[in-house]
């Protein structure tokens, strides 16, 4: 079967080709990294550190090629369904991007501003991204969660989360 001529399916096919590309890139990466390894031949380890990487990269490259062929012929990976999943619409970027944004904000803030602040931003931002518009309520819940987990982890598990800016207060 040749690839379907309509624009949408071409584009669809192209996006899955991205997966094939990723697999290929990963395969090459593993291969290149493995080649750089030194194999001191020894009786006790005839396999060496290179063997598995070679096998893995081989697997990845073969899959990449086969997948590309499969996609170009019209094959399609089936997106995962679920209770709360409605596949009839394309991915909702308006939700995902702010969500990722909140996540990144947390990464940036956590060591510097402390968990209490970064965790609050994370939860509040995520809730907002997911559609909740009860700003005050969400804010309160976020702060409560961040503070509770801060103390909980320290007192209960002995894990000191960073206090950051609130160093003296907490």
């Amino acid at each position, binding site marked *: 079967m040749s690839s379907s001529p309509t624009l949408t399916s071409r584009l669809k096919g192209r*996006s899955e080709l991205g*997966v094939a590309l990723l697999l290929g890139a990963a395969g090459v*990466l593993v291969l290149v*990294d493995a080649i750089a390894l030194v194999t001191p031949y020894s*009786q006790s*380890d*005839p*396999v060496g550190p290179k063997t*598995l*990487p070679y096998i*893995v*990269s081989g*697997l*990845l490259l073969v899959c990449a090629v*086969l997948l590309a062929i*499969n996609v170009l*012929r019209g*094959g*399609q*990976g*089936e*997106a*995962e*369904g*679920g*209770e*709360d*999943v*409605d*596949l*009839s*619409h394309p*991915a*909702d970027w308006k*939700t995902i991007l702010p*969500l*990722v944004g*909140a*996540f990144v904000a*947390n*990464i940036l803030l*956590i060591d510097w501003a402390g968990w209490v602040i970064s*965790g609050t931003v*994370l*939860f509040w931002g*995520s*809730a*907002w*991204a*997911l*559609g*909740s518009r009860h700003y005050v309520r969400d804010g309160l819940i976020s702060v409560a*969660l961040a503070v509770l*987990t801060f103390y909980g*982890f320290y007192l209960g*598990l002995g*894990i*000191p*989360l*960073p206090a950051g800016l609130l160093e003296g207060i907490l």
Partner: protein
Amino acid sequence: MDVLSSLMDGFATALTPMNLLYAVIGVILGSAVGVLPGLGPAMTIALLLPVTYVLEPTSAFIMFAGIYYGGMYGGSTTSILLNTPGESSSVVTAIEGNKMAKAGRAAQALATAAIGSFVAGTIGTALLAVFAPIVVEFAVSLGSPSYFAIMVLALVAVTAVLGSSRLRGFASLGLGLAIGLVGMDSVTGQRRLTFGQPLLADGLDIVVVAVAIFAVGEALWVAAHMRRTPLHVIPVGRPWMGKQDWKRSWKPWLRGTAFGFPFGALPAGGAEIPTFLSYVTEKRLSKHPEEFGKGAIEGVAGPEAANNAAAAGTMTPLLALGLPTNATAAVMLAAFVQFGIQPGPLLFANEGPLVWALIASLFIGNFLLLLINLPLAPMWAKILQLPRPYLYAGILFFATLGAYSVNLQAFDLVLLLVLGALGFMMRRFGLPVLPLILGVILGPRIEGQLRKSLQLSAGDPAGLLGEPIAIGIYVILALILMWPLLFKLFRRNRPAAAGPSSAAAAAPAAPSGSSAHADLPVLSDDSVRSDSAAHSRSSVKPDSSAHPDKKETP
């Protein structure tokens, strides 16, 4: 009998107030998680991994096992009351269960599911207690070559049998193995795939990978495709069954158990096949076949028993061989590793008390689930009112917290994001998640076994075939891989696209979607929720206001 005395000791440990508490927490958490959309036992255990590090391993595993079994109960509750099953193995329950609920028999459906699960779980766990030591005895006599072969078989079987596309399964496996490679080579001490980053030298922490793939990936995916139009949950009172219902249920329970346990114990068995088989069998054997499709109680009793027996079955290779056969077992394996416990045939020998306490706790957990879920079933439905923004924000919050607390490094959070994005991509393009996780967890161990085998044979590859078991397994392996080719040869008039004749691992390149759909409900690993399009209401209303205007001219 030695088994009995070990089991008794196990009970003694499991019944301490502390462990009993953890069991209760586990089953309640598991049931809640099974009911809630977007969550599952595998994800929950992954999220709890960093937290439980400070607990006694025994207590932690008791809780995890509770979550596992509890998840099954929760899943059946939603499949009956909601028509969108939470676990893919509950798909079949939904067929009859939901019909029963709509006909006002929700209480009976829930009761037969709960009691059936209890019966099956108890029998299944008993079988586990009996068979696991036998398997261990056999396995301990295995050498590295055979053990290597078994692991490869497990890996390939899961990849090649489950899921609608083998090709993608293998791709996923490749990625998992690659992730597992990152870090220091155990034998020569060289760094692999670290790209000069000192933070990667210790490899990617399995907890971070598990949390990223299961929790973050899933949360992002569901967030991207959140169902816009709410569903109805059927209100129900306390579950109970009449005499007729009991009479009609007990044999399906037993038959379901018989189906479920073996499949659960086999790598790549999974819980979907036995539930489906149970359904078909009950339909055929039923004295009321016309009721099937309209709410036949046998159609709930059998599959639910099969489901739970399969869960017990899954524990067998996990505990006896250190081989996980589904996502939840894989995460539990990761937990073992995290606690520094070496999984494998020696587990019983080295950590006997822990294992037997765990098995005892499975019995207890089952019992607790019955006790808790019968009266509380109506309440579980209320949980569904939880606003989803909080639910998914919570998942991301705790995922972040957990991943961070492993090493207190922000870098791990970057990994979380990157791998989470990978998880998202995999769900988008139909790459199954289970092979990846197995690749990450089993990859290093397989490599270790490979090296040991060849070390023993001083480099001679024939050493891999040194043991008869190993040869036998490779034969089975070859069969599994060759299966689609042989299949095509036998059915020459099948409209199969002329597959690349070289690789036996080629996907059945079916342009109209996978051909596996035609026969069975989608065979997928249980971290994947099966596409419930057949049962659920497809979302008709787009997310803004308009239902297409229907004007009627008078």
